[in-house]
């Protein structure tokens, strides 16, 4: 694994993503759901909302870095708010 040049932060990052995927898989098996239509007027399941959350969070982080360029961890708070909004309304 040496050639992959692992670091602790990146390992933690992928660990969190893997955990999220596993959690949502278990959730989908234990509590099956029907897709619903939200503000985007498209059918979404929990998995879709997770994808929208993660992708949007990446852009929120990039925008924070590009526009403010400091205190990156605070961007995560914004991402949390975004995640809550996505899971509530999308």
């Amino acid at each position, binding site marked *: 694994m040496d050639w*992959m*040049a*692992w670091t602790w932060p990146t390992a933690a990052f992928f660990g969190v993503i893997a955990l999220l995927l596993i959690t949502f898989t278990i959730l989908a098996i234990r509590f099956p759901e029907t897709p619903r239509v939200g503000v985007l007027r498209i059918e979404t399941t929990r998995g879709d909302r997770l994808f929208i959350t993660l992708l949007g969070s990446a852009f929120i982080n990039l925008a924070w870095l590009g526009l403010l360029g400091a205190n990156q961890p605070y961007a995560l708070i914004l991402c949390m708010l975004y995640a809550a909004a996505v899971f509530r309304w999308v």
Partner: protein
Amino acid sequence: MQKTPNQKAWFLVLPVLVLVAFSAVIPLMTVVNYAVQDTFGNNRFFWAGLTWFDDLLASDRMWNALGRQVAFSAIILAIEIPLGIFVALNMPKRGVWASVCLVLMALPLLIPFNVVGTIWQIFGRVDIGLLGYALSAAGIDYNYTQDAVDAWITVVVMDVWHWTSLVALLAYAGLQSIPGAYYQAARIDQASRWAVFRYIELPKMAGVLMIAILLRFMDSFMIYTEPFVVTGGGPGNATTFLSIDLVKMAMGQFDLGPAGAFSLMYFLVILAVSWAFYTVMVNLDKREG
């Protein structure tokens, strides 16, 4: 019919999962690792945090390449989609000529990218190329190696030549699937040619056209070989699209960190746009079916 749920079937997906892991997931993870580190070779890395992302977001280089890329994709989509529809509408619907047309249309799609590049590289040369020679003989000052506008025109025309048939073939397939009853009804109502196109053909083609737009957007957004062979990204940086710039950064300068950060942002944009297209496509199908 009663179906018995059998979750063991998921194990049949394992080979694909392994393949995708090796061809996409693991390389992508490595790119993420590179993007937050610096290296001087010898596989020794130093933590750099978000420096590369910060640098790239603040520099003009990536934004300019992104601007050129978006302009290129927009231009070729604006030409290829209407042109492809137009060609499909005028292709014979049956008989020998339908087959002849289909084969002719498929020909450019079968030519490898670098060969297409070479063809146009020579075709456009002023000294030996048919196009370049004819244009200069006609008194038009054309030189794609020195004039940015000429280089753009050449690259755009090359892409149109290479890929319009894909749009045309998809649109043709969409047209062929429209039942004759629709046209009969339109004739009874004395609908104009435009009304037939607007209210029968276009809605029925919407699905395949979305696929065509998605495919052409993705391919043009990732284009590398053809402009690289024809212009090499020049003159200056005039036709340096995202992929060309990325390869320059990663392979030319061997700046693995910045190139990793660049790749990730490139990937995110493609992922977002593809997701949007895909979602629209799936929802179009649902509304129809």
